[in-house]
């Protein structure tokens, strides 16, 4: 069974936001909406402080709270674990936004472009985005599907891999099938110590954060 997941190696992320830019360009998200963000967090107390860059977005949970609350069934979970939004069903009630513990969702507004009154190439290619609906990262599902249809392997072949993982300059972001024992996700999770955000909520995020080597003192 395929279960797509993403891994962010926090030791490698330099907070360059290239993933954010690649997502924004490729998915033509509206101004004010970022599916992939990188939080810049300061931890500790002077002089013992540390900056942590935390790539964040939809965690594609096993038990998505957004799906549970959605009154329209616009939010769905695919068999491969990717959580999607059917924009033609969504009524923009924002309940999913209130339910998502990861602040992954946004609400679209009136049509607007990144630069001025005319769409840039990616915005023109995307077409008109519905106003007043919820929006979020979908792990570049269309890209994955197209790649898989061509026999490519997500996470191994760039053309079947989410744009943010492709763009990551430090190799911090990895994507793939978590249930593939030979794949990069399973290896990274086996070799490193990791956590998932808000694990106590029982959502079962499909986004893992590496923070140390397995077996390190």
């Amino acid at each position, binding site marked *: 069974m395929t279960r797509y997941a993403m891994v962010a190696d926090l030791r490698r992320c330099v907070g360059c936001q290239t993933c954010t830019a690649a997502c924004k360009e490729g998915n033509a998200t509206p101004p004010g909406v970022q599916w992939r963000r990188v939080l810049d967090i300061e931890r500790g107390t002077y002089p013992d402080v540390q900056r942590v860059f935390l790539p964040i977005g939809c965690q594609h949970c096993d038990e998505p709270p957004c799906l549970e609350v959605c009154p329209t069934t616009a939010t769905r979970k695919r068999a491969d674990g990717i959580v999607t939004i059917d924009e033609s069903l969504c009524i923009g009630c924002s309940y999913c936004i*209130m*339910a998502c513990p990861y602040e992954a969702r*946004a609400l*679209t507004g009136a049509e607007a472009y990144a630069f001025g009154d005319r769409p840039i190439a990616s915005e023109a290619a995307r077409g008109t985005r519905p106003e007043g609906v919820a929006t979020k990262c979908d792990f570049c599902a269309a890209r994955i599907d197209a790649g898989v249809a061509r026999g490519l392997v997500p996470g191994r072949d760039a053309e079947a891999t989410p744009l943010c993982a492709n763009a990551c300059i430090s*190799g911090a972001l990895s994507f793939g099938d978590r249930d593939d024992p030979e794949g990069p996700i399973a290896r990274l999770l086996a070799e490193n110590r990791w956590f998932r*955000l808000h694990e106590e909520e029982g959502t079962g995020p499909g986004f893992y954060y590496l923070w*140390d080597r397995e077996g390190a003192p």
Partner: protein
Amino acid sequence: MSGARGGRRQNNWDLRAAGNFIGGGTGTGLAVVAAAEAFMGGTFRAALVLGLVLTGAGLGLVWLEIGRPWRAINVFFHPRTSWMTREGIMALLLFPLGILALALGEAWLALAAAVAAVAFLSCQAGILHAARAIPAWRKNELVPLILAAGLAEGTGLALCVPGTEPFVVLLALAAGFAREIAWGVYRGALAEEKRTQAALAAFEERPARLARAAQWASLALLVLAAALSVPALAMAGGALAFLGGAAIKAVLITRAGYKQRVALPAVPVRGGGGRANPASAR
């Protein structure tokens, strides 16, 4: 409507959403009063009409808030898990039953409308409880508070309606004390968690403190009204019970309803070497 051009991240629901919870709660309390009055042989129409109007007004405010109001029918698509869908279904039951009760004057129809109203309010409590991103709402202790608060607000407002039966003072008093108990339990639950301290702080600000003072004053006035049988005291106490409850609910939705932030369970141990992404090494 969604407002901002392009799009925006949303951090809380606004007063329109609060209006739905105020209207739904108060409307439910009024429907319960109407059912009680109907069974006691009194006139119940005024309370029921007001209850239906307030509940409908609350739903209307939500309709104004959603991004695609002309698709509102889609709200009925997910009864299996969504409390918002269930709220809509209960509204579909409540309004026909209420209108039938008004038209036919039957006590049992008023009772059925009251049952649907309580179910509707339970769904509203479920809506808040299922909003997992919001620490102050996902507390189990919020559910009884929403139910008790709705009854206290509705029975209180009923006392301001001319012709309300005298025994409603006792209902309002009981609901008011139930709200006090539920409030105390809820506040205790908020105090136990670090993430809900800002919600507690919101309830310590002046608007919330004034609202709480109004609730205490309402209880005192209702006790006096019950003891002395003075309608003016009952009316004043009822008005304060409603206004105080509405104000607290507005604070609960708009100020205490903030989303939790990211909490890092560990920080990266840098300098360990090793390649993370095999694909990136090509």
